[in-house]
């Protein structure tokens, strides 16, 4: 039995009894930070000599969707389950809709499928743009060591120019408009039908969407240009991008199409280990052969691991770990190429720059995200020019019920899985949801610990710690980036309290 397992056993026993031990370690707590539905925190513990003993990213909320969806007709589920997250405004909706296709054993006609994909592509542009500009770019454009008062979207706009900033906001809103035309509501959409889509697109609407999509492609190009100018051409930043303090060595999982290319709406899940070797591919219910989720008492969020690579072995990185992550970086590591021409050029540059595949440098997430804005915008344009998109045949009516359905989608934050069992009338009896941020739970913990270990030495908490810890969890985009960040400050409030062993506050640091 490994030492980790031994410790785990012991700890589990203690937690069950809720024993509050006399702590010998110093605790640093970062609270609040935010995540998917709002709230999370970080606790860092120092050992006797003042070095980081361990660090924890804790998710503090729980809702219970997997239970209360039971009893609902499956076709009512997409618009209901969408409220898991209001930032990822389309993904739970789409994923449960795909599961509902399976439940009724029906596939959408080409027009229905294309409308869904157009809808999702528009969401990707809107969401990735908000995340990148509000969270990712300020660290680089304004600078990781800049004052927190400036290291935010406003500072970013000042740095790139007000005109550029306004243009970005305005173009992003076009993606939201496409979303509303196709989905009904601008958030928590409703147009899903098992076997298709309830909305038909008129020629007038199509022409409008085509025009807007052209602008979205421009937004993608502009975004990559900003990344190039600011990050790639700056050796200081490239040191961070390829630095060990932001390196987390884990496996990856993402969707690929039949030619092993990038795909968001539909595909096969491909899983690689931390060395980059193929572990396997799966669709539908086969996810259960690959994924297991461990429950730990200090987080409401479970900890998935790749069970093909062995049973739960704690949260650890390295070539033999069975922890894996999902999202933009995972996609760049798993696919052979992009499926649109302009994004492909940038994909090649991405890999030429890093040299090694898989890329374990988590700041690469931001670059990957920028490439995906362009990829999704190109997809919008392609679909808006597809003659079939205005077809009237958007729905194949279900005729029978299979009683079970699994939906899998490459959500913006990574692979999302919804699994439902129903009765003969399509009424949900059982449900299982594995959301993107859940897959990344262990890697986020690793990222925070790695950065903390790097920046806290011998009891000295470096002044730069706060932002550098933020830079470690931001790439994963824990749905932190509710674009409300775009309104005022644009950075996450982080407070670190350093406690003495007796619990008294020794020192307090804030970034606001």
């Amino acid at each position: 039995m490994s030492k980790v397992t031994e410790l785990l056993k012991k700890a589990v026993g203690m937690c069950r009894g809720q024993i509050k031990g006399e702590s010998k370690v110093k605790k640093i707590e970062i609270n609040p930070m935010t995540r998917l539905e709002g709230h999370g925190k970080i606790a860092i513990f120092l050992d006797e000599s003042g070095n980081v003993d361990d660090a924890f990213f804790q998710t503090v909320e729980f809702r219970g969707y997997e239970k209360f969806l039971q009893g609902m007709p499956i076709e009512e589920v997409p618009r209901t389950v969408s409220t898991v997250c209001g930032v990822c405004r389309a993904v739970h909706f789409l994923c449960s809709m795909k599961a509902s296709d399976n439940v009724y054993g029906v596939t959408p006609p080409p027009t229905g499928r294309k409308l869904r994909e157009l809808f999702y592509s528009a969401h990707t542009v809107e969401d990735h743009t908000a995340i990148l500009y509000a969270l990712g770019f300020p660290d680089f454009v304004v600078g990781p060591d800049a004052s927190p008062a400036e290291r935010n979207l406003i500072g970013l706009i000042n740095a790139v120019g007000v005109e550029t900033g306004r243009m970005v906001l305005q173009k992003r809103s076009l993606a939201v408009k496409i979303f509303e035309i196709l989905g009904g509501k601008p958030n928590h959409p409703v147009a899903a039908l098992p076997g298709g889509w309830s909305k038909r697109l008129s020629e007038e609407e199509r022409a409008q969407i085509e025009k807007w999509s052209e602008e979205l492609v421009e937004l993608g190009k502009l975004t990559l240009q900003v990344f190039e100018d600011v990050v790639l051409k700056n050796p200081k930043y490239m040191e961070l991008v390829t630095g060990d303090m932001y390196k987390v060595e884990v496996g990856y999982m993402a969707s690929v199409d039949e030619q092993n290319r990038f795909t968001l709406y539909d595909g096969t899940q491909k899983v690689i280990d931390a060395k980059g070797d193929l572990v396997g591919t799966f669709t539908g219910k086969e996810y259960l052969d690959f994924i297991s989720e461990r429950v730990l008492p200090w987080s409401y969020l479970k900890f998935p691991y790749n069970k093909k690579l062995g049973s739960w072995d704690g949260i650890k990185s390295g070539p033999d770990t069975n922890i894996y992550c999902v999202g933009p970086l995972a996609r760049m590591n798993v696919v052979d190429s992009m499926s649109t021409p302009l994004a492909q050029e940038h994909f090649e540059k991405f890999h030429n720059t890093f040299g090694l595949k898989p890329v374990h440098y988590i700041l690469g997430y931001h670059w990957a995200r920028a490439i995906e804005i362009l990829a999704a915008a190109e997809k919008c344009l392609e679909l808006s020019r597809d003659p079939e998109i205005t077809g009237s045949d958007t729905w194949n009516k279900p005729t029978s019920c299979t009683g079970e359905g699994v939906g899998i989608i490459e959500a913006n934050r990574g692979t999302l899985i919804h699994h439902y069992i129903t009765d003969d009338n399509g009424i949900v009896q059982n449900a299982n949801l594995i959301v993107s941020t859940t897959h990344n739970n262990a890697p986020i913990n690793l990222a925070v610990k790695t950065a903390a270990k790097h920046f806290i030495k011998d009891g000295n908490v470096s002044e730069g710690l706060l932002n550098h810890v933020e830079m470690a969890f931001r790439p994963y985009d824990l749905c932190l980036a509710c674009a409300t960040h775009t309104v005022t400050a644009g950075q996450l409030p982080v407070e670190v309290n350093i406690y003495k062993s007796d619990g008294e506050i020794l020192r307090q640091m804030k970034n606001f």
Partner: protein
Amino acid sequence: MAEKIKFGFLLAGGCAGCEMALVDMSEKLLDALGHLDVVFWAPTVADVKYKDLEAMEDGYIDLAFVDGMIRNTENEHTVKVLRQKSKTLVAFGACASLGGIAALGDCHSQEELFSQAYKDTFSTDNPDGIYPQPECTWEGKYDLTLPAFTNRVSTIDQLVEVDYFVGGCPPHHDFIAQLVQAIVSGNLPAKGSWLTSGKAVCDICKRNPADHDQKRLPIGEVFRTVDGRPDEDKCLLQQGYICFGPVTQGDCGASCLNVNIPCRGCGGPIPGVRDYGARCVSTITSSLKDDETAEEFVKKFNDMAKFCYRYSYSAGILNQKLTPGK
């Protein structure tokens, strides 16, 4: 121009969709910010933290929005503090004003919710059957805490006094723009009111039979949305697709009907209705032709509580009777 309004926004137990709706106002939001001085926006915006909110003078904030319901002890605490610090408090969106979708959790016990998520789900690995704990000592030395899950979901006004209510999951950004306009011009109704156009979804809906000089007729057949494709121009309810438009506030501009999908009530009850779900049932059943149709309705939607109270279970009388509060 008068002094800027000191504005606060708290995300309690919501999904942040309401906050995104504010962001979706785009340029109009930038205009609005000309009148608003954001003094608190947590945890999603960086200005001020809970601790600093606590340090503010009572009544320091002129106008505060809360989105999300009360789901744990942290929500309880922050909402109480916000109330104390705010002159005017608005329960913003379906969760805050009615409980929202996550309030459907109250149809089950906490044990049922936890055992499904942490033990029974197909992919869960939990050999020792543990649940997340409000307090735990991990590996014998790390003291870690989590907010505790409350007995039931509460609306904001079940915990503190609320001055205004806004429906919608989330409220439509066009409506928010009108709202903000009304607020900055000081054009507000009596405290305790809903901020609403006062119209039902049917009043806004282009399919309303009254707009086409047609009478509403008794409904002879009931359909789920998988059963067929409704005529895109005719009233869904008249065609047998159960639609809550008659009893729901239409500040959304009838969004769902625009894509041929029935209303499920996220706007909240039309003025004068105390219990949304009960009103839904009575309105729908009284539109049905006969007992046989009523039976068909019950058979097709046998999750009546989850169907009719989808966005408003916490505010309903039923839940308050069945699930004891704190």
